[in-house]
């Protein structure tokens, strides 16, 4: 009997939109899988590839980066920079043998608690289908 595989997700949520969105999900008693560990960051633009790579190195199965919708950044343009960075990191991780599905970049506003729970649920399900990362 195999033990049920529970993917570990690290979520970097921007303070102004996505963290508030997750908070709203919580206060509204919406439920989402407990697989995610949330790290609050000032802006999705603060998340550097090193943080993502470190998560994978330490055994994360998936990493979620979530910030304000383009155009809504609290710092005007942080998420535009993040978008460029992670568009590239996506394909680079895949190239290194970390499937692109394991990195997710989503724009979640403070009012989108429902959307946040949906994203975490979907992500968890997809990672579970993908199975554990091959060692390395």
């Amino acid at each position, binding site marked *: 009997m195999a033990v049920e595989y529970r993917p570990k997700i690290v979520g970097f949520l921007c303070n102004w939109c996505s963290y508030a969105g997750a908070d709203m999900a919580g206060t509204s008693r919406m439920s989402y899988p407990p697989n995610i560990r949330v790290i609050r960051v000032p802006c999705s633009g603060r998340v550097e590839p090193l943080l993502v790579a470190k998560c994978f190195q330490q055994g994360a199965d998936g990493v979620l980066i979530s910030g304000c919708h383009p155009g809504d950044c609290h710092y005007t343009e942080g998420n535009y920079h993040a978008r460029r960075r992670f568009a590239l990191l996506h394909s680079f991780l895949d*190239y290194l043998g970390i499937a692109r599905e394991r990195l997710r970049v989503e724009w979640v506003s403070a009012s989108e608690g429902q959307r946040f729970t949906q994203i975490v649920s979907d992500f968890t399900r997809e990672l579970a289908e993908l199975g554990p990362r091959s060692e390395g």
Partner: protein
Amino acid sequence: MDSELIQQIQNQARDLLESGAVKGIIGYERASDGLTARPFFAYEPSAVERLIFDETCTHNLVKYLLDKKNEKMAIVVKPCDSRAINLLLNEEQIKRDMVFIIGVYCPGVVETAWNRKGQTQQARCQTCELLKPVVYDFLAGQEPVRRPEAELYSDILEMEAKPVAAKRAFWVEHFGHCIRCYACRQVCPGCYCPECFAEQLDPSWVGIRIAPKENELWQAIRTFHLVGRCIGCNECERVCPVDIPLSLLNRKLEKEVKELFAFEAGLSPEEQPPFATFKKEEKLGLEE
């Protein structure tokens, strides 16, 4: 060896030293094997006779400008190397008036190692379209007739097409060989952080362990720090003592940057590198 080209370089170097226009010349001389080249610093007019240029001059000397920021130096650059000068100008690491650039038309360089001179041109030269330096004060040699022979990214496409597990296995094996000598970083003109993340101790991102997981973190992030900045001299791959195919990493990102942002590093000293700018309307495959 093209003796006329060498004569041109030597004459220019001698003039610069004799007139006091520069403190020294960064060029090439014959290595201890009597066969290949090595970097050479000439400070006296009498030393310029040692300057050479031939198909073994693979080193990108631009790295040394970072050590000589406070002295006016002349430097011998191939077209590929000259892109590194633009990179460093763009990033305000060097000053244009502190460098006299002796550019050379490049017929391509061969694979070299100590006491070994390859017969064919390096792979990067076989696809290179840049025959003339992008920045120079003096241009030596004659425009070669040369056309790209090979498919630019065939090896990258091949790698991309592999299943993810095969990619994983490939890199795990190579990164397992890494001894973290940091030669790749030390030779790279784009690597000049006063404190590299790899050696940062507080927090200790990579740490001192020389082991596959740490090595991978090192290599992956170093490559990513060069996005839109790697000028393709491929020095990192050349100096790697354990033959990690680093050009497969750097050129993957070079290709992505070209496709996504239509950008190539070092072609101009002014153009904004891709991570320093953005377009509001671009989607880049990420849903809004």
